[in-house]
């Protein structure tokens, strides 16, 4: 055992607070539930920061390369010799980075919720679920084993389900929670089969061994998986594509994204934590974790690239038309995750060519701060106006100065304006794309202009434009607990970009020298500024220009507003095809054919017995007759045989 064993506390503390609050919270410490949860998260965050300090600055690096350190590992369920689910903790640059991000954002959300969720009937339950989510997410991040990650993957899915459905008496929340769970479950089916395929050929579930065996071109494991093929595609690519399907489901990539906008039915701090900063990037994290294997399959990388790129683009278009502020943010999240995905897709393992990998992780890091800030800010706004719709907002900059400033910072960050955080990370992604695939670069560039446009459309509609009529009691900006996270995250959205990220997190653990290339930066920044300028022109003051543009676009606008009818398509497939054409016939078949057959058999037996029951009449005379007949028959047979 090494001196990292204390890291076990990082997942255990939230688990303990989940059990405590879940079992006894309602009865015994309803009032302190929030404080208890927050205190445990504070401890976790401190531990995560200590871990990061120790790993990055003291003993993570050996000869200039960051190592994978297995802090703990226990065999949990043995399937076959060498093939087992282990529970363990791995420390490497991405897991340590994620530990910090997850625990920190979770802490902010815990603090924010103290004010936001105050007075809720199920306050303790809310904190119990938050703790459960944090536990599962941390477990996912530190997984040493592909099945371990799958298990925590399912657990984050169920915590997300529970939190989306938190307002369970609202039918729309119930529907959204079910949708989120089922869509991601469907994606997880792919993940599971992918695991079966990869682990069968590699004869292990352990990440390190898996990667080692499936990346060495000479190994028998690699030969077996890359030479076998199914439908003309190598089994390796199948396995990776299926694993990616799981990642795409969790990360709301097209066409498995449909659950994310609906997931906004959950309390807003939950959206900030789960559906913006942490759980939805799990798919990116998964691909990064298996990146060495992905990089051996050109086809799998292409899949990642184009799914990511298309999602980034289409989500940005849809975001331009939505009027529910949380839905705008949801689509923006999907778009930004698309960036992270295609950045991985254009990367290669190791060295300068691994720039995309580093850019992806960097964007994941900065995005976590500014996107959770955007969600928490919109939470504060919703708290004030009691509505999610833009039409009920406007002119809030005077009433909510802190929210306003922090929101503006976050908008600038996501728009890629220097020196805010998003600029640096998006820059690396576009640079990586530029070097690999010009088409990807061009779409990424255009999308970054769209991003700036829809974010500032949102910003102006909330804080400028017309004056909103605030109904009922005026809350002001809420309690200190709500303002504090906004301020902290606002600061981070400015400074996070200055972290020399490429020194810490790269595809092969070797520091990468990056520098800002002004000539290259000019174009993305110009696109961003153009988007902002257009939004300013259209939305800063209330006018009818936007409506006129929408009208002139006609069907295109309507299609985007209706989210390109993808939901309707799914509904058609599930309701009409699966329910009516598979489920209903199966139930009918069972009731009438299979059961009918069994009943028919019973009826037949009854009928036969009805027919022959006359034989047992109880009349001695008839029996004597049968007996006599029998003797005659036997005698006849006997005579016949004798001859």
């Amino acid at each position, binding site marked *: 055992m090494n001196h990292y064993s204390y890291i076990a506390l990082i997942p255990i503390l939230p688990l303990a607070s989940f059990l405590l609050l879940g079992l006894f919270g309602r009865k015994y410490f309803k009032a302190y539930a929030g404080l208890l949860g927050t205190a445990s998260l504070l401890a976790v965050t401190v531990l995560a920061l200590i871990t990061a300090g120790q790993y990055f600055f003291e003993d993570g690096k050996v000869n200039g390369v960051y190592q994978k350190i297995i802090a703990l590992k226990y065999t949990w369920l043995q399937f076959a010799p060498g093939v087992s*689910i282990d529970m363990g903790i791995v420390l490497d640059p991405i897991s340590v980075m994620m530990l910090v991000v997850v625990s920190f954002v979770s802490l902010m959300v815990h603090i924010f919720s103290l004010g936001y969720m105050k007075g809720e009937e199920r306050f303790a339950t809310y904190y119990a679920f938050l703790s459960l989510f944090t536990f599962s997410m941390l477990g996912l991040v530190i997984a040493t084993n592909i099945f371990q990650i799958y298990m925590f993957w399912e657990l984050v899915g169920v915590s997300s389900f529970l939190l989306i459905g938190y307002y369970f008496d609202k039918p729309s929340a119930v529907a959204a929670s079910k949708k989120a769970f089922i869509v991601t479950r469907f994606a997880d*089916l792919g993940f599971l089969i992918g695991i079966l395929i990869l682990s069968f050929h590699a004869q292990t579930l352990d990440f390190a061994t898996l990667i080692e065996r499936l990346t060495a071109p000479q190994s028998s494991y690699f030969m077996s998986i890359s030479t076998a093929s199914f439908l003309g595609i190598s089994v390796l690519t199948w396995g990776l594509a299926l694993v990616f399907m799981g990642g795409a489901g969790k990360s709301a990539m097209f066409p498995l994204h449909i659950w994310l906008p609906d997931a906004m039915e959950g309390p807003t701090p939950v959206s900030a934590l789960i559906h913006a900063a942490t759980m939805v990037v799990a798919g990116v994290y998964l691909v990064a974790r298996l990146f060495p294997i992905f990089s051996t399959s050109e086809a799998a990388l292409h899949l990642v690239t184009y799914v990511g790129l298309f999602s980034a683009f289409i989500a940005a278009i849809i975001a331009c038309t939505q009027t529910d502020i949380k839905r705008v943010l949801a689509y923006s999240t999907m778009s930004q995750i698309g960036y992270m995905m295609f950045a991985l897709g254009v990367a290669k393992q190791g060295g300068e060519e691994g720039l995309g990998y580093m850019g992806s992780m960097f964007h994941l890091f900065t995005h976590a701060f500014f996107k959770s800030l955007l969600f928490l800010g919109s939470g504060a706004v919703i708290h004030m106006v009691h509505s999610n719709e833009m039409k009920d907002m406007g002119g809030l900059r005077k009433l909510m100065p802190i929210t306003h400033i922090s929101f503006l910072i976050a908008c600038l960050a996501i728009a890629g304006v220097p020196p805010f955080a998003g600029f640096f990370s998006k820059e690396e992604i576009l640079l990586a794309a530029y070097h690999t695939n010009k088409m990807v670069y061009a779409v990424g560039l255009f999308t970054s202009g769209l991003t700036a446009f829809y974010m500032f459309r949102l910003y102006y509609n909330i804080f400028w434009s017309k004056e909103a009529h605030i109904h009922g009691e005026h809350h002001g900006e809420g309690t200190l607990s709500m303002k504090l996270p906004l301020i902290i995250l606002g600061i981070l959205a400015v400074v996070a970009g200055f972290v020399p990220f490429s020194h810490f997190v790269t595809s092969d653990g070797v520091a990468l020298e990056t520098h800002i290339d002004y000539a290259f930066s000019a174009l993305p920044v110009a696109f961003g500024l153009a988007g902002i300028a257009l939004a300013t022109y259209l939305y800063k003051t209330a006018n009818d220009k936007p409506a006129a543009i929408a009208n002139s676009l006609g069907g295109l606008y309507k299609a985007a507003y209706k989210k390109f009818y993808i939901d309707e398509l799914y509904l058609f497939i599930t309701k009409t095809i699966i329910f009516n054409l598979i489920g209903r016939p199966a139930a009918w078949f069972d009731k009438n054919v299979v059961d009918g057959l069994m009943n028919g058999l*019973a009826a037949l037996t009854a009928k036969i017995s009805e027919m022959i029951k006359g034989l047992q009449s109880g009349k001695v005379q008839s029996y004597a007759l049968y007996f006599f007949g029998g003797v005659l028959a036997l005698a006849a047979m006997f005579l016949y045989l004798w001859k």
Partner: protein
Amino acid sequence: MNLSFLILIPLLTAIAILVAKGTKQVRTIALAGSVLQLGAVLNLFWQYHVTRANGNNAQMLFEDDYTWFSPLNIHYHIGVDGISVAMILLTSLVVVAGVLVSWAQDKLSKEFFFLLIFLSMGAYGFFISLDLFTLFFFLEVAVIPKFLLIGIWGSGKKEYSAMKLALMLMGGSGFIFIGLLGLYFNTNINGAHSFDLLQIAKVPVPLAVQKIFFPFAFAGFGIFTALFPFHTWVPDGHSSAPTAASMFLAGISMKLGGYGCLRVATYLMPQAAHEYQWIIILLSCIGIIYGAFATMMQKDLKYINAYSSVSHTGFVLFGIGMLTQTAINGAVMQMVSHGLMTALFFAVIGMIYSRTHTRMVDQLGGLLKVIPFISTVFMIAGLTSLGLPGFSGFVAEMTVFMGSWQNPDGWYRIATILACASIVVTAVYILRAAGKTLMGPITDSHYNVLTDANWSEKLASGLLIIAIVAIGIAPFWLTDLIGPGTEAIMNKLMAVTH
């Protein structure tokens, strides 16, 4: 360690119930007897563990052998391996929980508890028997009380269901008996035919004999465990049965079939198991998928759980059919897991029904607000059913999947993918049921005054949940327990392929 206590304790409890007076005495005796049995079983579990840890590698432990009827060479031969211990543990847990949820039973309570305990005696006897005749004898002991339990204390079209269940299970028994006689008359051990399971296992049963009698034995036991297309007794039988009987039926009786398929059919006739492998996999795969889709369309909570049992027990036969050790391990784990989970599910459905007087999901709604404890139990049962990590269903199903994939046949892999796909359908029907029943607005103003679970209901659910979670978070104790047992079966299966 004498295993006969497993039969004696329920027998004495049943007799004591017969002489007891009044509902209070009867149920107290039933509870005391079943708790005593649970304690004894836990002791057995511990003793088994210790004996194995001390290096005793015998296939069966704690064996006893008495001649019962010498002209036919029938013995009372008992003994346990890890698989039996796991099944016995499951049985004792379900029995205690079943007695607890029947606490308020006041209609003919003496007869009711007598039959419950008597039924459990059959199950214990079945799991410890190493003589095929006694095994069959105890199987029948476990069948007949069900007919009465459903016919007298049931609900809905109970006479029809009781008759259907009894006839189909009797039909299954008939098949089984033919299979057993086939084995008996075709083995010759020291000049005599034998029913002895361990002795038959040692001699090669001729292939021709296996080919004829394997289908009888497997299909016969398969009827008990809802093998497609012989599953139709399951939905009607479970739905009409009173709560405790549903729990016993799905939690224990269906496991008799899975255990028999493994221990008798597959173990004693391994070549035929290879021969008919594709049929087993085909039928169980159909059962898994088709059961899941049929569940999706059900409106009655009990029918939902009954059809989902068809789907879930499909994994048991599916795992056995794959003939790899991991898959067989998974099948045994699935038996334990499904037994606990389905007992919990039926228990909680009973709790809801006794309060709201309906089991129709359309009429229920918003229960989480008024009866949070029961609703949480419902949710836990549902999450176990859909295979959430941390509960037993996950480890069992994943072990079956991992083991099935080890079979390199392409068609079987397609079957495995289809079986995996059922977990999505499971999520659909579980969330649909939970969403309609527990969430949403309260549909009936009467529901506002419902009372939450009482002590006996809490105890029963708590007991089952603890067992489910114990497997879910620490599966290694279960795999360690059953490992040597499945290995012995596997060795026999491997021996015939070479």
